[in-house]
């Protein structure tokens, strides 16, 4: 298959390494300069070594259920008279696409000979994935997580600790994903000699956006082949939710050269007019800025101080967006939309009841957007949705949103029993 536009991402004009249009770059404290240069070299070496991708694909097959299947949503397809397919990233080990990135970086860490890994996590999915990788490949592991997210996602904290990771609750700033990233960067500024920072999404300084896109492109490569095999044609539209943008970048990578509409769905929170959302591109509260090591659209005030964001899903609740996606948006290749918390809960319920699949709240944003647009789609339209993760981790949030009385009663009994 042709991946011309994808390959072009790896080529930079002299002096513009790591930039996609105006976005990206490496705006970092000087202390990290040589570390990022070393990482860029190691990544480029690995990318040019066919044995590396083979080792990666083999590991993903034996440890993480790859290739993940594509499932047709028969009932929803019938209802709207279109064809809706899901790329089942929820079936990865640890329940989300995060495994693709983490295991790729893990193999790279082994090549670089480092002993310790650190990571930020929002929903906890990337933290759990990193902790499993560290356990399997034999690295020490520290996970930074905003204190608010530690509260929201306690089960994932439990699993990270069981896996042997140290979980640090970050109390700075808004105590969410962005603050966890800052804390991980600070750790790395001191520890880089023997430590690798496993950034969880397509953000941060070069080469992270490119490297994470590269590992996640396994989603799009598989999906394109599968669609041709199953449906005999490419989808008309591909939808993915966008937090930092890694699952979206991964599935879009397979279709950049094709006449396929790519749709990124951001967190609309309580609504785009409320300031209580995380829609960097689809909303109107973001503009170009530089933070956390890179340049992109950030949700910020007029003087460049970051603003609070909101989403029902911790994994999409973030101020910035991958620079490659920002650039593909500006150049018209990707359309951005937003789904509100309420729409997301509805979409979640619909998928569970109609298709027997429990999606993560993050992934439910992509489903919500398809359900909004489906009534207006021409008959026979083929839609592919990246189902980035499974919803088990969200049981507390969802039960609360649905005000499920029996679940609350169960919690009360558990609390009473624990004394």
């Amino acid at each position: 298959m042709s991946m011309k536009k994808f390959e072009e991402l790896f080529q930079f004009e002299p002096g513009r390494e790591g930039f996609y249009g105006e976005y990206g770059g490496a705006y970092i404290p000087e202390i990290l300069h040589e570390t990022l240069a070393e990482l860029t070299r190691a990544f480029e070496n690995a990318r040019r070594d066919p044995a590396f991708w083979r080792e990666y694909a083999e590991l993903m097959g034996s440890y993480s259920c790859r290739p993940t299947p594509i499932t047709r949503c028969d009932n929803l397809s019938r209802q709207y008279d279109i064809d809706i397919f899901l790329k089942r990233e929820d079936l990865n080990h640890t329940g989300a696409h995060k495994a693709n990135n983490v295991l790729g970086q893990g193999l790279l860490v082994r090549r670089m000979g480092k002993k310790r890994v650190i990571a930020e996590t929002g929903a906890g999915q990337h933290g759990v994935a990193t902790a499993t990788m560290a356990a399997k490949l034999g690295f020490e592991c520290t996970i930074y997580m905003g204190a608010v997210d530690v509260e929201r996602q306690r089960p994932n904290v439990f699993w990270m600790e069981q896996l042997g990771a140290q979980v640090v609750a970050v109390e700075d700033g808004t105590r969410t994903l962005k603050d966890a990233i800052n804390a991980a960067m600070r750790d790395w500024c001191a520890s880089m000699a023997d430590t690798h920072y496993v950034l969880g999404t397509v953000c941060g300084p070069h080469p992270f956006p490119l490297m994470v896109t590269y590992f996640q492109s396994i989603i799009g490569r598989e999906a394109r082949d599968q669609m041709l095999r199953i449906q005999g044609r490419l989808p008309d539209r591909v939808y993915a939710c966008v937090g930092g943008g890694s699952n979206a970048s991964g599935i879009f990578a397979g279709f950049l050269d094709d006449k396929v509409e790519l749709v990124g769905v951001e967190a609309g929170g309580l609504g785009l007019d409320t300031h209580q959302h995380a829609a960097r591109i689809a909303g109107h509260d973001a503009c170009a800025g530089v933070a956390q090591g890179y340049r992109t659209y950030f949700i910020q005030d007029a003087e460049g101080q970051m603003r609070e964001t909101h989403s029902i899903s911790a994994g999409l609740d973030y101020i910035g967006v991958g620079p490659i996606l920002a650039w593909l948006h500006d150049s018209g290749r990707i359309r951005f939309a937003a789904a509100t918390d309420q729409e997301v809960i509805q979409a979640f319920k619909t998928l569970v009841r109609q298709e027997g699949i429990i999606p993560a709240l993050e992934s439910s944003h992509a489903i919500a957007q398809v359900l909004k647009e489906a009534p207006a789609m021409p008959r026979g339209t083929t839609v592919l949705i990246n189902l980035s993760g499974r919803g088990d981790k969200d049981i507390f949030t969802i039960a609360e949103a649905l005000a499920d009385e029996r679940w609350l009663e169960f919690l009360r009994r558990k609390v009473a029993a624990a004394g």
Partner: protein
Amino acid sequence: MLEDYLRNKLQSQPLLVMTHLVAGYPSLEDNWRMLEAMRDAGVALVELQFPFSEPIADGPVFVRANQLALQQGMNGERYFDFMRRAAREFEFPLLYMGYYNPVFRLGGQRFCDALKDAGGRGYIIADLPPELAVDLDVKAREAGLDPIHLMTPANSEARLREIAVNAAGFVYCVARKGVTGRQTALGLDVTDYLDRCRKATGLPIGLGFGIRTTEDLRQLKGHADIAIIGTACLEIWEQEGEQAYRDYLHALQKAAGRN
């Protein structure tokens, strides 16, 4: 320019003291009293940090100070007003210190104009590497401002030379890996590192990050030109109050002088 000022000062004193404050923390009134204490002690140079919501190069003490300063309403207008008043009152040069985004949002030219207009002499931007600072540095030089660049012990010789190309005023040498705050153990590796920096630049050399004791300053004499003290000052202000802060600055300045 800053370099001439520093060279001139270095004729009468082997090591200069540069201090730091986070503008708006604990308050601008406290900041003013800090500046008075710095003047009375004979501090040579002061950096005024403009707070940012994502201070990735700072340790816990400054992270908190950045955050609280913003919560109390610090913004660009108040910052430059404060700098303007301070530049009129005090003789020591004032530097902008901060992160790139507020500069980027204001625009390079407007930032340089505002800084010049407020009486600032240069800037230190913690997350703007020299290759990405070129445009801003050109504008700064046209405005008569000095872009201060940072060298670190993790840099190769080649990188140190690259950093030196657009540096002006003096070079800020980061004393160790990590972020601001934690104490640095000054040993032979630090003096070796300073020698490597000297080979890369002819500018005066300042050493910062984790410098806090009078003993640190005595050891730096003959190796660095400027001792940069940040977190330690703020900790003393917060924990021991104004008089202790004054005593501390006097002791630093004394340790930096001729024995």
